[in-house]
């Protein structure tokens, strides 16, 4: 056999004792030193078993390959009742499954609002009583139904959903329509103006968008996201470019489809820089779902929070959730709010980080680094560090400031345990008390135990 290292100049990667690396320096042998640290405490035995799994390498290549190859297209806008078969009294929510008893303030607030919106209660008090008794009420995780929702992520039968189809693998995913900022249901607010807006979205916005997409769709979201990244969005906390691009694509069709409502619809979309977030989340969901169910794969296919727990799902581990307590984000607060007003981390929007956007693409969005409390160099460092825990670089989603390097995609639980580096997540901050709404935005760290629990589970399959 021919052993390539015997020919040509030796170039060495060193990992471990510095003294051995320095001996190479004295011989002028080119080398790169690994900044090695011990893995997360207690994970060494599980890591050895998971890494030895003969399926792992090709399973991960297959899984992340599917995530990268997905071609999400916006194909329709439909009521949840019809698209998801939701019946009266059924609600989907963000994050891993949760009961009313364990639900946090904003999750409870959103549920109360959804009850009022669906006409299942006349007053917030009545809604709370019914939710607490549980009679005629069914709660389930959005992720169990090909769906994602930002913050509380509440989906009720009368809400209209963006439908995104993966043209490569044929999957479909759904996300609700974005309500805008301030006092909104997804942040747990349920006052009259919140319910009023939801009614308008159901009666006007949804049907108009449906008609417009039917005229001009399907819309290629992969291309749109790739462009938005190059225009300074990271697609989680900044969606200004993506929203603008979406409006450019869809405005003529809106005018044609509904001339009477076009102005109010366009004014609503233009008034909300985050309008695209929900479409981006559905695109991320359909891409992540394409990577599900590959035996032996340690790839993370969902990260989601319900305001109480932070949970992840892993390609090789079916629909099981691995959870830890949701942390309180570290960031900037609106008006007179402060950290004491903040609820623990909430929402399915971490599906963006799961597919290499959001915090993973921070280097693409220097304009918002101050918003999440940092400098441009912090944004570059955040993205750069995520290459350490991901399996691939996205071929289409590129970051100009990093020499058009692809975003880091595909979190590997084994790499998280080895490096101790946790996914960087950008997020909004909801008020702790039901009915408050948004109080800030910032960065949050997932709990390490969600990843180590998944690693342990990979040993048993």
């Amino acid at each position, binding site marked *: *056999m*021919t*052993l*390539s*290292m*015997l*020919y*040509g*100049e*030796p*170039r*060495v*990667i*060193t*990992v*471990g*004792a*510095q*003294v*051995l*690396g320095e*001996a*190479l320096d*004295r*011989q002028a*042998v*080119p*080398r*790169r*030193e*690994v*900044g*090695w*640290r*011990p*893995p997360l*405490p207690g994970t*060494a035995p599980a*890591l*050895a078993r998971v*890494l*030895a799994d003969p399926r792992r*390498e090709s399973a991960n290549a297959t899984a992340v390959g599917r995530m990268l190859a997905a071609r999400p297209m916006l194909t329709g806008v439909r009521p949840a009742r019809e698209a998801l078969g939701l019946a009266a009294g059924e609600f989907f929510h963000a994050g891993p499954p949760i009961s009313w008893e364990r639900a946090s303030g904003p999750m409870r607030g959103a549920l109360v609002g959804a009850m009022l919106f669906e006409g299942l209660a006349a007053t917030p008090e009545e809604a709370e009583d019914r939710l607490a008794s549980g009679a005629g009420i069914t709660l389930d995780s959005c992720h169990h139904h090909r769906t994602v929702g930002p913050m509380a992520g509440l989906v009720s039968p009368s809400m209209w959903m963006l439908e995104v189809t993966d043209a490569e693998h044929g999957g479909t995913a759904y996300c609700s329509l974005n309500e805008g900022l301030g006092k909104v249901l997804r942040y747990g607010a349920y006052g009259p103006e919140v319910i009023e807006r939801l009614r308008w979205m159901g009666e006007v916005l949804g049907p108009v968008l449906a008609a417009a997409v039917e005229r001009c769709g399907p819309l290629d979201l992969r291309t749109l996201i790739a462009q938005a990244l190059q225009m300074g969005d990271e697609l989680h906390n900044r969606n200004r470019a993506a929203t603008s691009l979406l409006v450019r694509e869809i405005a003529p069709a809106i005018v044609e489809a509904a001339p009477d409502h076009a102005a109010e619809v366009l004014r609503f979309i233009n008034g909300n820089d985050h309008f695209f977030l929900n479409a981006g989340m559905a695109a991320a969901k359909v891409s992540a779902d394409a990577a599900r169910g590959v035996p032996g794969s340690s790839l993370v296919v969902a990260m989601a929070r319900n305001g109480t727990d932070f949970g992840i799902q892993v390609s090789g581990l079916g629909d099981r959730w691995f959870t830890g307590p949701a942390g309180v984000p570290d960031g900037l607060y609106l008006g007179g709010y402060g950290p004491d007003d903040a609820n623990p981390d909430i929402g399915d929007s971490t599906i963006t980080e799961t597919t290499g956007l959001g915090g993973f693409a921070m280097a693409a969005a220097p304009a918002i680094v101050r918003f999440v409390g940092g400098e441009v160099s912090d944004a570059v*460092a955040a993205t*750069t*560090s995520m*290459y*350490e825990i991901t399996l691939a670089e996205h071929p289409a989603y590129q970051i100009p400031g990093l020499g058009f390097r692809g975003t880091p995609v595909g979190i590997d639980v084994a*790499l998280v345990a*080895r*490096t*101790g*580096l946790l996914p960087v997540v950008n997020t909004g901050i909801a008020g702790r008390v039901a009915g408050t709404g948004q109080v800030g935005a910032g960065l949050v760290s997932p709990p390490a135990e969600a990843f180590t629990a998944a690693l342990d589970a990979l040993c048993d399959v």
Partner: protein
Amino acid sequence: MNDLVEVRPGVYRDSVTLMRVSRTLTERPGVSVAVVAMATELNLGLARDLGFAVPPATPGDLLVAVRAGSPAELEDAAAELERQLAAREQTGGAPGGEAPPRTTRSAARAFEASLALVSVPGEHAFAEALDAVEAGLSVMIFSDNMPVEQEILLKDRARARGVLVMGPDCGTAVVSGAGLGFANVLRPGHVGVVAASGTGAQQVTSLLDLAGVGVSHVLGVGGRDLSAEVGGRSAVQALRALDDDPATELIVLVSKPPAPEVARAVRDLDLATPVVGALLGPGQDDLTTAAEKVLRALGRDVPEWPSWPAPTHRTEASGPRRALRGLYAGGTLCTEAALVAGTGEFTDFGDDAYTRGRAHPMIDPALRLEALRGVASGVVLMDVVLGHGADPDPSTWLAPAVRDAVDRGVDVVVAVVGTDGDPQGLRAQAARLNAAGAAVFTSNAAAARHARLLAGG
């Protein structure tokens, strides 16, 4: 008492580096104890035993415990600690102050390498070595304590990818002129070495170098490779690779005697290049004899191996038998010396039992020095291994200890394994030890024979 006790979460340095920092601090005026180590149970216990009030910590944290005579001296030591830690910040040779890669996998993506050198603690070595193999790189695993099933798995995956796993517990290698691990500076030449024994290979290649014969490559395979369990997986690959290498005209296989079925498999390999075995064991040639066989096979003269004699305390040839104590850093050298001497009490300080929680005796001489100081009479036989990675100047600490031992009436015999090219300087080290009263040999077997003679009986 002026104590500084601190736990720094998430700060990591390797154990050898921290040992050097601790030693530097201990040498400061007024500092009586300095423990700078990762906060493992072992190290926390050590600090507690020394009377430090140790706060709770995890093995991922750095523990600092320093005791000084006065507050000013403590402050001084604290400042030195910061300087030391800053100087030993991992830079990784990454361009432009970039953060260093955190895994071998990510290093291999950013840097076009020909091989990887893994020396993390044994329980973590598998992950890094597997990264290298999956990136298509050969890997030397200096780490020991790797479970044998991991070794077998790595070697099978490596063979499938056409790369070589050198190790685990591989102390030395020379690849295309680069010395890895503990490596002597050897002249380039045409002898290829496949070694399941690090210091055994260092002895053979150093003697060849002294005889003017150089090496093409020295490929370590790990001490277990020729066992029945591992089945010579890497040795077979390394032999084939050297057979394929036009620069290699003769191959030396250095090992303890292999398992019989492995020996057969190796012998049955259809190689075009001649192979000389240096298989150390009872009834086998010693390493010096094996080196001489290589020279004869190459048609070279066998030189007289350099040695530096010393006066002995032994007064008459037929006097009473004296105790012989062998204090070794090299495992194979220790085995060889015990076999050749046929008598005496030998300790291999490189054995796992002595290296838990401290560096290898080729780097940290403390335990061997202590043992030498404890010998009151008779004969002491030691090795000093030179080369890259080893102690930069062993005679500075060993020569005074030798002088004290000789003054106590002890005869000291030292085998210096090294070459003229080694950074420590073979002849300078030998001369200094000789001047302190030791008889010095470049052949370990010759040193052992001399020690046996001095012990008598």
